C-alpha cells in the first residue's frame, strides 16, 4: 500500500519451473550386541547419508533484482556414528539398576555446489555469518577474519540412570555436548552498552578487539564462543506408598506415589552467555546458535502425588 493505493512488488525469491525433489541415499552399517543374559546391550551405527539435487535457496547477484534463487543442485554429505550402551548391573526382584549411555557425532560436508559460495543467516560478516561453500562444512561460521567457528558439535553424549529399590525409584539424565560454536551477540550488546559484569577490563577489551566493521584487525572470533556444556537435565526421586498404607488411607485407591523432581539443575559450560542451548531463530537447518538476548531455559522443580484408582 502507498497513499491508499494497492501495489504489487516483484518477489525477492525467484522460483524454478523445473524444480524436483531432493534425493537422499543412505548407507548405514552397524551391529547390536547383547552380552551376558542382557547384562549389557551395545549398539553401534555408522551412516553415510548423501543428498543430491539439493533444494538450494542460494543468494544471487542483487543487481538482478532478486535476493534468492531456488533450484536443484549440489550435494551434501553427512557422516556420522552413533553408539548406545545400556547396562543393567543389578536385576533382582527388589533392586533394579539400568544405565544407558548414548554417543553421537555428525560431520557435514558440502560436496558439490554449482553456485559460488554464499552466506546465509546471521547479521553480516562482522557479527558472524554462516557460509555455504564447496568442500566445507555446511555449518561453518565466518567472520571478518575468515572462518571463526562451526556450530556443529564435535560430539554429544547422554547418560541416564534408573534405579529401583523396593518402593523407591531414582533416575537422572546427564547431557554432554562437546564443541559447537555460538555467536554470542548478547554479550556484544552488553559490552557495547558498557553493561557487562566484567566490563572493566575484559568487556572493553572484547569490544575493542571486535572493532566493528570489516577491517584487517577486527576479530569476529571474540564473540563466537565455544558452546560446550554438561547438564544435569533431570533428576527424579519417587516413593510408592506400600499397599497396606494406601488401602488404609484412601478407600478405593490402588496405588499412591510421591515424586520430587527437578530439571536443569546443574550446568557446567565455558560459554559466557545465559545458556549454550540457544537459537534465536528457531530450529533452523543452518542458522542456529545465534544468541541475541533470548529468554533462557528455566530451572524447575516439581513435587507430585500420583493416585491410581
Amino acid at each position, binding site marked *: 500500500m502507498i*497513499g491508499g493505493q494497492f501495489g504489487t512488488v516483484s518477489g525477492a525469491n525467484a522460483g524454478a519451473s523445473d524444480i524436483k525433489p531432493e534425493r537422499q541415499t543412505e548407507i548405514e552399517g552397524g551391529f547390536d550386541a547383547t552380552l551376558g543374559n542382557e547384562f549389557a546391550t551395545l549398539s553401534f551405527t555408522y551412516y553415510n547419508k548423501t543428498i543430491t539435487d539439493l533444494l538450494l535457496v542460494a543468494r544471487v547477484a542483487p543487481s538482478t533484482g532478486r535476493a534468492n534463487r531456488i533450484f536443484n543442485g549440489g550435494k551434501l554429505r553427512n557422516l556420522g556414528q552413533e553408539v548406545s550402551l545400556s547396562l543393567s548391573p543389578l536385576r533382582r526382584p527388589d533392586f533394579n539398576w539400568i544405565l544407558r549411555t548414548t554417543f553421537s557425532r555428525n560431520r557435514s560436508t558440502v560436496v558439490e555446489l554449482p553456485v559460488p559460495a554464499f552466506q546465509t543467516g546471521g547479521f*553480516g560478516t562482522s557479527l558472524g555469518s554462516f557460509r555455504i561453500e564447496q568442500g566445507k562444512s*555446511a555449518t561453518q561460521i565466518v567472520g571478518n577474519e575468515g572462518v571463526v567457528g562451526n556450530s556443529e558439535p564435535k560430539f554429544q553424549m547422554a547418560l541416564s540412570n534408573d534405579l529401583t529399590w523396593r518402593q523407591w525409584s531414582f533416575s537422572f539424565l546427564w547431557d554432554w555436548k562437546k564443541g559447537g560454536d555460538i555467536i554470542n551477540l548478547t554479550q556484544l550488546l552488553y559490552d557495547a552498552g558498557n553493561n557487562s559484569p566484567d566490563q572493566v577490563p575484559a568487556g572493553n577489551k572484547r569490544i575493542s578487539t571486535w572493532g566493528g566493521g570489516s577491517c584487517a584487525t577486527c576479530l569476529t572470533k571474540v564473540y563466537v564462543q565455544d558452546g560446550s556444556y554438561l547438564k544435569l537435565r533431570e533428576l527424579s526421586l519417587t516413593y510408592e506408598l506400600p499397599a497396606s498404607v494406601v488401602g488404609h488411607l484412601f478407600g478405593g485407591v490402588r496405588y499412591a506415589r510421591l515424586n520430587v523432581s527437578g530439571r536443569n539443575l546443574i550446568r557446567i559450560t565455558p560459554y559466557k552467555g545465559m545458556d549454550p542451548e540457544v537459537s534465536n531463530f528457531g530450529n533452523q537447518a543452518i542458522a542456529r546458535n545465534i544468541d541475541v538476548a533470548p529468554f533462557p531455559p528455566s530451572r524447575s522443580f516439581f513435587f507430585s502425588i500420583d493416585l491410581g484408582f
Partner: protein
Amino acid sequence: MRPILHAVSALGLGGALVLGACNFEITNPNAPTEIGDNATPAHVAAAMEGLLIGARGDVPNWILKSAILGREGYRIDAADPRFISELITATKLDPSNGAFGGGQWQAEYAAIRSGYNVLNVIGTAQISDPEKEGVRGFTQTIQAYAYMLVLFAHTEDSIPIDVNRPLSDPPAPFVTNVAAWDHVVSLLDSAKTHLLAAGSAFSFTLPPGFTGFSTPAGFLKVNRALLARSDLYRASEFTCAACYDDALTALGESFVDTTASLDVGAYFDFSANSGDVTNGLAQQPTSAINLVHRSLKDSLAVNGGSDARFTAKVADRGDTLRDPLAPTGHFSALSWIRYPTPSSPIPMIRNEELILIRAEANNNKTARDAVAAAADINFIRVNSGGLAADAGLAAATLQAVEDEILIQRKYSLLYEGMRWVDMRRTGRLAQIILDVPATDHVFSTMPVNSFEVDSRK
C-alpha cells in the same frame, strides 16, 4: 537398529520436497499475481503503485545512513552499536550487510527489476497506446530515481546497468560511474519522450504525494527536476562543463518556482494503515535515538545563532545521549523532528532543492551569472531560513558563493539524504568533523554489496 540422534540434514527442505513431488500449482491467496502478458488495467495500476513502493523501501534507511556518514547526525542505539561501529569507527565499510555497508543495492535493484517486469510486457496490456506510453514514462523515471540512489552511495567501483536479463544469464557487467550517470540521464530523457506521447491522463492513480504531478504533463516536471539533480551531480563530480547548463535547461521544464511553496514537490507517502509502512524516521524527540550532530547547532553562530530551518527540524532531546564507547566524542542532545509523525511523507525532490540547484548551476556554469545565483540564495536565506539577505553575494567569488550554497543546502535539505553526497561531489569530505580523530573515519563511498561480488566469482 534404533536410530539415536540423526543430525538434521543441513540443507533439506521437507515442506518444499512434498510440494515438489506432488506438482501442485500454488497461488498466493493473499496477494494478487504479478503483472504478465495481456495485463488488465488493474494489474498495470497495481504494478505502478508497486514500483513506487519498491522505490520508497530504502529511502528512510538511506537518509539515516547518509546522515551518519556525512555527520548530519548519529544513531546511538543500545540495541545495535553498529550504527557507530560500522559507519563511523570502522576502517572499512562492511559490504556483507545490507543494513550498513552493503546497503543501497538490493532494494533499489529490486525496484528497477519491478520496472522491467512492467516494461517487458506492457506492449500486450489491455490499455490504450497513449496509456502504455504513460506507463513507460513513469516507470523509466522511477527506475532512474532508483539508479540515482545506488549511484549516490557508490562511486569507486560503480554499478551494473544492463540488468534486464534472465536470471540464468551472467550478471550484468559493471560500467564506469560516468557511464552509469549517462544511463540515468538517458533513462530520464527516454521517459520524457514517452510522457509527451502519453495523452492527458495516466491509466493509474498516483498517491497523494504526487498531488499536482499526477498527469503525464505534471509528472514530466518531476522527471525534469530529477534530471536537474543528476546534471548538477555530474557537473560537480565529473568534468562536465555543459552539465550546469543542462541542469538549467532541465529546471526550465521542471516545477522550480519562487512564487510557490518551497515544499511543493513529489513525495513518498507513509501511513499506519493496514498494509502500508510507517515512516521509520519519525520519533518522539525525548526518547529519540536518531540524533542531530551538534556541529549543526554550533555552526549556526555564523548567521546569528538562529535559523528557522534548524528550529523546524531539530528539537532538544532533554538530556544528552552518549555512545558508551566514546562518551566524550559521540554524543548529542538534539533530536530530529524533520519527520514528526509516522505518516510524514519523505520528499523525492522538492522546490527548495530546485532553487538551490539553479543557484549552483548559475554560479558554476561557464558563463557565470553571479547575480542570478545570489538572488536565489538570498531568496532561500530570507524565505526558508528567516535570515537577512547577504548583499555582498552577487560580487563574491565563485568559491565563496559555492561555500554559501553548501551552507544553505545543509540547512534547507537537512535529513533528506543529500549532505554526504554534497560534501563528496564538491570535494569537501575532508571538512567533515571527526569527533574522535583516533577512531573516526569519513567514507567516500559504500562498497559493492558482497552478494553481488560473491555471485560473480
